[in-house]
């Protein structure tokens, strides 16, 4: 039975099987890598690669129904990886709670780096550079802007650490991330509901994405702590 309409080029139809094979090979390689790795942060990231292979299989179908299936698949993947990293975090918290008098290791700070960051420039200019980067990131908006603003945040935290000040704990990061997600969804919905206001929808989505990308750094830093302790 052939369900493909006649106006679809043959090249597209013949791409289905290779992409399925590619996805299965990606999944296989990722699971092999998981089997050979023992560090939890690596396993977490490699598991996400398996998830991407799943997205590839769904996307290979290439119809508009498949397009509608990718979004829930992606959301489920995201929810799972967030749940797992949450488990990892709360396990670390309980380990610390159970033994609070244990001397905190060097790696328990926000940015555990094996090499020395005590440079002259860290004492003089970083605040200004961080401010500049964040301002430039907000001006850019969107994904690139988020990355630039995130780099600004990193520089600010690094400089505080280098000067011996306590590195700020970013507790509200999850909240910011949630708000940005809402902004993005509202902007996305506006584009469909009132296409006349596309500009405001685009801006909302771009600002949401900016906050989202910028706030990702906190989560990565928190998970990194776990594995560096092992070395």
């Amino acid at each position, binding site marked *: *039975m052939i*369900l493909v309409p006649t106006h679809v080029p043959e090249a597209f139809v013949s791409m*289905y099987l290779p992409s*399925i094979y590619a*996805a*299965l090979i990606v*999944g296989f390689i990722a*699971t092999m890598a*998981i089997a050979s790795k023992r560090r*939890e942060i690596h*396993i*977490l990231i490699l*598991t*996400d690669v*398996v*998830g991407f*292979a*799943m997205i590839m*299989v*769904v996307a*290979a*179908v290439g*119809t508009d*129904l*498949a397009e509608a*299936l990718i979004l*829930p*698949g992606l959301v*489920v*993947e995201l*929810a*799972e*990886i967030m*749940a*797992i990293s*949450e*488990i*990892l975090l*709360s*396990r670390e918290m*309980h*380990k610390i*709670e*159970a033994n609070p008098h244990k001397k905190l290791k060097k790696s328990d700070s926000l940015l555990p780096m094996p090499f020395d960051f005590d440079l002259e420039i860290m004492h003089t200019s970083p605040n200004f550079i961080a401010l500049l980067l964040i301002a430039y990131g907000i001006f850019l908006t969107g994904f690139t802007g988020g990355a630039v603003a995130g780099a600004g945040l990193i520089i600010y935290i690094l400089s505080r650490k280098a000067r011996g000040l306590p590195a700020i704990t970013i507790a509200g990061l999850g909240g910011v991330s949630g708000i940005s997600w809402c902004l993005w969804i509202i902007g996305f919905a506006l584009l469909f509901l009132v296409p006349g206001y596309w500009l405001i929808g685009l801006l909302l989505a771009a600002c949401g994405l900016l906050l989202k990308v910028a706030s990702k750094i906190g989560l990565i830093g928190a998970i990194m702590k776990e594995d560096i302790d092992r070395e």
Partner: protein
Amino acid sequence: MDFATLGGNLFGTIPFGDIVLYLTPFNLFLFAILLVFTIIIAISNTETQVEATFGSLKNTNVTVGKKEFKQRRILSIICGIASAGAMITGDLFNFTLFMALVGILNIGIVSSVKQVSVLDSAFNYGLIAMMCSLPLFGGAAIILAATGTLSLSILSSMPASPMVIFGAVLILLGVLGESGVAPFFASKAEMFRTAGSPFLVIIHLSSLFIIIRAVEILLLVLL
């Protein structure tokens, strides 16, 4: 295979466009039982584990705090509703989504416990569940590509091609992994070893029911 052969008399269908819900005694029974269990779980209190301590005559109580209790209760209610949805759905992809949702909620229910070993096994179970989303969703997508539909009512009247059989095998693999049975039972069994039984039981119950429903769906698709 036809609905009537598997589930008894067909009471009727509820068509939502392509997604056609079908009501047979089998599905309605599973649906109702799960809802009843969910209600029982929603109104019950948690148990308290009493553990003997070594080296003394004291006992230690492993209780569930109020915040933890509330969090677990809401998650287990959602878990019950999600598994009830998987019982009644007439769409293959919806079933896989419900299955994945149950997997996430299972992790969520134990995420607030204090035992490190339980959290360890929940982490491992989560990894397996995430890896198994590849065969689960991939199988559904392959069936969609081979037949052009995800509606179980249309799939049940179609003959199974080799691609459909491959997709069905993948779905079976995915369900086994996501619900934590078959080769991956060790981490799932460790997840239970904590206080708070009625909420923990929904983890067990949802995977039992989903396995039954998965068998029915595979029979519908294959035969």
